């Protein structure tokens, strides 16, 4: 179960001021340090927040990606993409 690591990375953006910079400078290298699956890494790189949500990302934390302008995300792109996911009610 690595949904934890998806969320841990997103949460880390508010805890570690340098994380966003490291992700912008070397996305593949930084993502490789987080114990993510290939599918998860690909979803991050593509800014595919709907996929990250399906994989267990908490929407509250996924938003941090757009706030930091990572992986091509901004507020509008984030909203456009997250709306393609089916809501989870558990």
């Amino acid at each position: 179960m690595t949904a934890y690591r998806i969320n841990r990375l997103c949460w880390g953006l508010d805890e570690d001021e340098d994380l966003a910079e490291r992700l912008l400078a070397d996305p593949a290298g930084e993502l490789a340090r987080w114990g993510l699956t290939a599918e998860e890494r690909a979803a991050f790189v593509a800014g595919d927040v709907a996929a990250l949500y399906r994989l267990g990302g908490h929407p509250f934390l996924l938003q941090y990606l757009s706030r930091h302008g990572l992986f091509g995300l901004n507020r509008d792109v984030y909203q456009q993409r997250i709306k393609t996911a089916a809501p989870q009610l558990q």
Partner: protein
Amino acid sequence: MAEAVIGIGVPHGPMYPQLVAEQGPESALGRRYGAVRERLEAAAPDLVVVLTADHFVNFFFDNLPTFAVGILDHAHGPHERHMRIPRYDVEMDEAAGAAFHSFGIDQGFDLAACHELRIDHALMVPLHFLTPRMDVPVLPVYIRGLQPPLPRAERVLAFGGMLRRFIDERLAGRRVAVVASGSFSLEVGGPRIPWLDPEWCGVVNGAMQTGALASVAPQASTERMLQAGNVGGELLNWIALFGMLGDRPPDHLEPDGGHSFAVWEPR
């Protein structure tokens, strides 16, 4: 017995302080908070218990309590740097926090104890509007509301009943405000932004109007709350307030979209 107990429920939108700063205290939102603040000030509390859900500021999935209480003499916030909310140092009531922790454990509610806390917007926005001089000490109580699995609503209702016994038995002579922070229906960052579930809000507001506060909990399964939005679990803070109050209608109720402003005056 406590000398007086006032119950309050308000939302905590992180943009509200900036909105009211721009639009003025006579704006619709400014008046809604203002009407609650007037009643709070009339009750002259010497302790504000805030029932709230931590928004990933104190607790992450690595260590996430279902119930937690602050046992500390002050805290600072809000911690979220990107939010346009004034920063405050807030005095907290360490002795009351410690007493509530022991009382809760003794009553079968296994609260986590927090001797350090970072204030998030869910705790700060109500204080910003209701006790803007930050001159009333705070007792923060956290209920897991944003990260399923959530506690069962009936358990939270009973938690509120335990809070009432604590106030009655251990806060003799105090004047206590109990503030529930949160929405009934709201989607933050999820697929249904912006989501509003009028039917569910009607259930909650209807129960308040008739005073049948305990009738909400049996209907508030996790699935039903999350149907109303991914932060629908914030309703649990209100359900704890309902348990603290017992069945009676509020003296002031202003429904407003996915949340309400409500006051139960001391009696």
